[in-house]
């Protein structure tokens, strides 16, 4: 995470996400998937092909791509279908766009009710006998049972969570890095799924994105760093208020 300043002098915290060896693996039609839209399987970081069975490696062999560590599905419209085997780059996203990031949260192991659900516990003194971090009562008398989904101690973390509506401030095309506003679930160097935001307030934020994706062998020559309009670039002189 890094600070980033806008032209008005305000500071925002930014997370860096690296797009490492992303390829489109497979196209799943609407009838096959059973959903409302066709789907595209995309694979992330490269990994060794020797620790998986032959059946699992079939998808990678058909696409002609080394084995990937993370595979995720994206629901795509009909006009955005890409041929399996095309590489995807960070330039697929543009600064000023809004993005949802999904990842597995940091695993905390078996945790008590105060850390897991934020219960208040009991006072430390004034006669409390062996009760300082316990949940207290778990149901009423009339219910005569404990409801399903009662908040109790258990394994915390290591589940998929999404942060919605994160603004993209800057993109580095040479090293394939996306600078995303705020924090993102997951630990350092974890694998993450980045997708266009589905929030209704961010529907019209995407102006002229590369459609269906940014092709590296195309005619477009992008500069190494793409900035949002409001970002203060370090080549400019210091900010002054007129």
């Amino acid at each position, binding site marked *: 995470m*890094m*600070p980033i*300043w806008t032209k008005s*002098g305000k*500071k925002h915290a930014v997370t*860096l996400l*690296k797009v490492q060896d992303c390829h489109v693996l497979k196209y799943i039609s609407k009838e096959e998937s059973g959903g409302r839209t066709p789907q595209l399987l995309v694979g992330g970081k490269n990994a060794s092909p020797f620790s998986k069975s032959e059946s699992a490696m079939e998808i990678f062999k058909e696409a002609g791509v080394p084995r990937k560590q993370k595979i995720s599905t994206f629901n795509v419209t009909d006009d955005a279908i890409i041929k399996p085997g095309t590489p995807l780059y960070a330039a697929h996203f543009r600064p000023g766009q809004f993005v949802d990031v999904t990842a597995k949260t940091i695993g905390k192991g078996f945790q008590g009710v105060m850390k897991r659900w934020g219960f208040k516990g009991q006072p430390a003194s004034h006669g409390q006998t062996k009760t300082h971090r316990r949940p207290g009562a778990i149901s009423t008398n009339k219910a005569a049972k404990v409801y399903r989904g009662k908040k109790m101690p258990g394994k915390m973390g290591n589940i998929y969570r999404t942060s919605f509506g994160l603004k993209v401030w800057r993109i*580095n095309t040479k*090293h394939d*890095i996306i600078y995303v506003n705020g924090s993102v679930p997951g630990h*350092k*160097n974890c694998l993450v799924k980045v997708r266009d935001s589905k929030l209704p307030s961010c529907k019209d934020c995407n102006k002229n994105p590369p459609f269906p994706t940014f092709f590296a062998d195309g005619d477009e020559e992008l500069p190494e760093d793409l900035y949002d309009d409001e970002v*203060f670039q*370090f*080549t*400019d*002189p*210091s*900010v*002054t*208020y*007129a």
Partner: protein
Amino acid sequence: SCRISSDGKPATFQPPPKPVIIDKQKQGLQRRFLSPEFIPPRGRTDPLKFFIERRDMIQRRKVFNIPEFYVGHILAVTTANPYASEKASRFVGICIQRGGKGLGATFVLRNVIEDQGVEICYELYSPRIQAIEVLKLEKRLDDNLMYLRDALPEYSTFDVNMKPVSHLEHEEIPVNKLQVRMKPKPWSKRWERPKYNIKGIKFELPEEKMKEAQKWSKPWLEFDMLREYDTSKIEEKIWREVSEALKK
């Protein structure tokens, strides 16, 4: 009449000894200073992140000059302020702490203005800073002067209109071995404890208190190998990279 030397021979002309020219500029270049925020902290972060951050820091340093300074120097910082009358505010103070790594590096300046102690924490790479001038170069015995909050206010007062004291580039930065006198206890932190390792306070506490404070000493810490972080090689590499990039 010519002087006759002890040998009895007439004195011959002895040319004066040749002057030895010490090129102090070359000697000064031997002192390399790398700002502490360039050194990456120990962790599992990808080195690519530090490389990209360093590129941004160097880019900012090319446009705006950040002088070499340590804890104990007296600095004057002008920042852009939309609410000030001239849209710029200037603050003079002694640097008591330098924290943070990378682009978020900060330094805290302390001064006592009209009997009120004021500390301001500035970000080195913030675009709102317009100028940083070093008014007086002087290192202190410690890396962290937070104890000035519990010292007598005279040690933290500096004249706001102080003129910059001239300092030649090649000279070593002088170390001020000032021992500061403190206000009566209680202090914000127990500065006499060995954990803070402060050499710049003149402790006027009785001997028993000083002995009691030594009870919290942890002499095994200096032999702990897992805590060692040798930055000499990393520093060399980064210093070469930074100085080459700044020369361009």
